[in-house]
């Protein structure tokens, strides 16, 4: 009974995935024909496309952090992610492998959109599990120009959204923070790809109306049917510094268990999930 049920479920999933693919393709071909005009719907779709692909996912990431004088730092890490539900709570486990001073450091996040995230850091040299104040999500992620929010997403209810224009390629959405005290921008504008709903470019404006920060998706690849920003760049236009981010060996829907995102994995990094899997079909 159970087995039969599972088979039917799986069959249904395959069918719906196939239908979805067909729909996506036809949508893509008809792009521009049926523009969305509900900005909330656009923002919601963009949020899902950028941060909620699949039920779970894994990626190996490399960052190059370049300062205003051209000096470079590198960060390499593997990210495991699991969604409780699309658009809702998520779990992240980040395992750093390079450079040597942070090798073996792990970062565990329970993300609660609209609320403070729970964050832990494991320092292997001291065998120390440190809890980190959720505090400022708009603070540098491991020294890079990426903010925590760029990595795990900004709650879509935290801004007022306004659809500025719709071109052949993009929905251009302007966002003003509901709570302007805790953010460093006065507004930001996002160019959302009409076909994939990937945010392709985001520009942040300060109080004087000047653009001082830019986040770009420089390469988007379709992986297991999900458009994925595999190359990104964050530019600090005030200093001239920037960070490049490249993701590879990306896999979705691996069946990562929820209890993997725990103190156990901090002390004993889950090798089974961190090691590079065989290429997906």
């Amino acid at each position, binding site marked *: 009974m159970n087995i039969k049920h599972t088979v039917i479920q799986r069959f249904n999933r395959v069918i719906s995935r196939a239908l979805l693919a067909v729909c996506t393709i036809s949508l893509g071909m008809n792009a521009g024909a049926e523009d969305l005009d509900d900005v909330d719907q656009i923002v919601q779709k963009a949020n899902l496309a950028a941060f909620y692909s699949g039920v779970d996912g894994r990626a190996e990431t490399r960052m190059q952090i370049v300062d205003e004088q051209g000096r470079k730092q*590198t960060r390499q890490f593997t990210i495991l992610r699991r969604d409780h539900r699309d658009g809702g709570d998520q779990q992240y486990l980040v395992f750093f492998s390079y450079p040597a001073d942070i090798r073996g450091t792990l970062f565990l996040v329970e993300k609660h959109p609209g609320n403070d995230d729970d964050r832990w850091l494991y320092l292997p040299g001291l065998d120390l599990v440190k809890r980190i104040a959720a505090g400022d999500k708009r603070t540098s992620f491991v020294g890079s120009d990426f903010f925590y929010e760029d990595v795990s997403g900004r709650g879509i209810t935290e801004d007022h959204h306004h659809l500025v224009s719709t071109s052949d390629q993009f929905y251009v959405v302007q966002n003003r923070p509901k709570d302007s005290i805790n953010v460093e921008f006065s507004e930001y504008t996002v160019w959302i790809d009409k076909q994939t709903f990937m945010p392709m470019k985001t520009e942040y404006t300060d109080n004087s109306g000047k653009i001082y920060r830019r986040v770009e998706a420089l390469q988007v690849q379709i992986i297991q049917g999900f458009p994925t920003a595999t190359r990104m760049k964050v530019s600090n236009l005030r200093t001239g510094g920037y960070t490049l981010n490249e993701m590879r060996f990306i896999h979705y829907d691996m069946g990562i268990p929820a209890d993997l995102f725990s103190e156990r994995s901090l002390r004993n990094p889950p090798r089974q999930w961190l090691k590079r899997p065989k290429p997906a079909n």
Partner: protein
Amino acid sequence: MRFFRTTLLLGATILCSCLSLMSAAQAEEPDHWSATESHAPSDTATTDDWTQEDWGDDPWTEESTDNASQWHGFIEAGFGQFLRSDNPTEKNVSLAELRARLENDWYFGETYLRLKADINADAVTDTLDASIREGFFNISPTSKSDMRVGRQILTWGTGDLVFLNDLFPKDWQSFFSGRDMEYLKAPADAIRFTWYQSKANLDLVWIPFFEADTYLTGERFSYYSPMTDSITAAPPQLAVTQKSNTLSNGELAIRLYQNIGNYEWAVYGYQGFYKQPRGFNPVNSELFFPKMNVFGASLRGPVGPGIMNTELAYHQSKQDKNGSDPWVPNSEWRFLIGYEQELISNLTLGLQYYLEQIVDYQQLLDQSPAPNTEPPHRRHTVTVRLTYRTMQEKLRWSLFSFYSPNDKDAYLIPSVSYRYSDGWSLESGANIFIGDHIYSFLGQLQKNDNIYIRSIYRF
């Protein structure tokens, strides 16, 4: 001869620092990234900006492949100098060493062997030491349990440089001399078993042979001696009755812990000995490690924009249960409450209030041969940690301070570290002790004020 070695090490430190400066100046690593300066909008960006092939020769690729083991480690030169000329220590240097570390993991299925080994040429003690820092097998006997057998670093509890329920060995000599923070935790030869359950996880640590702290002996740092009622240093060597390596001298530590919502609770137990020789045997005039049990609990979680932690522990002095023995410490309550918050971007403030309250205090005073040098009934301590990260976190400023208003002493640790590149970094700092009395907990260290500098290359 000793002077020569010290000079040599100082020279090495300066050389390393210069090298790291030079390497930073020409930090042109192989350009895997061909970083584009183009601010082209996304729709015109091409893949030409990023070379596809470069991941192939990346060290990470090798590391990620199955069963590959890689050697890592560091080379470090450190030098530290006492600031006061009246410190009775034999040397006027607090740190003078060249250290090399090698580490690797070997996997056998899910089981792995970890090895971290140090070689240290130490001009303060005139020794060349090779030591295993970590050397253990990590096994998962069942899907819900892990076991670590061998030499390992053990840490639990919620305090920041304040330890209530963490009775694992600490190396205070390393801490005071400005070595890397990881050396505050000394390794223990232990078996750790962890059992993961939905209601509560269980941690059980058995240290078959007692592992004491690396406490102050007078060799590297001076301290207050009640015998002479003065700040002293070796020689003469501190006469301590060491614990023999028998199983009856083992230590047992237990922790039950779990999360409820955003909050982490834990209860702790410990059976063993005072980690420092706080007992005195008038028969042979030697110090010894009295028996001790510890019971405690902690809670940690978000409050407002920060993280709050609180912890309680009862240190039961087994050999002086009613406080009548003047040569063995009385039992003690310890209480901690702390809060950490990011004040503004990259500036973090951590505050802690820590209480040590002696049980049967009147008994202690009545029996004490020198009641005026005994610690206060309640020793209040406030700690402040300020951390500021700047220049893409390459430069970190930090200040940690302990202050006891009623014991009238303090300890300040200012430090700054700079990462020149992914490999090279430099750290400098100071250990400053202030005290009204030479016998108080921190005041006895007041002649040990020192500054240090360390240059590290990690690979």
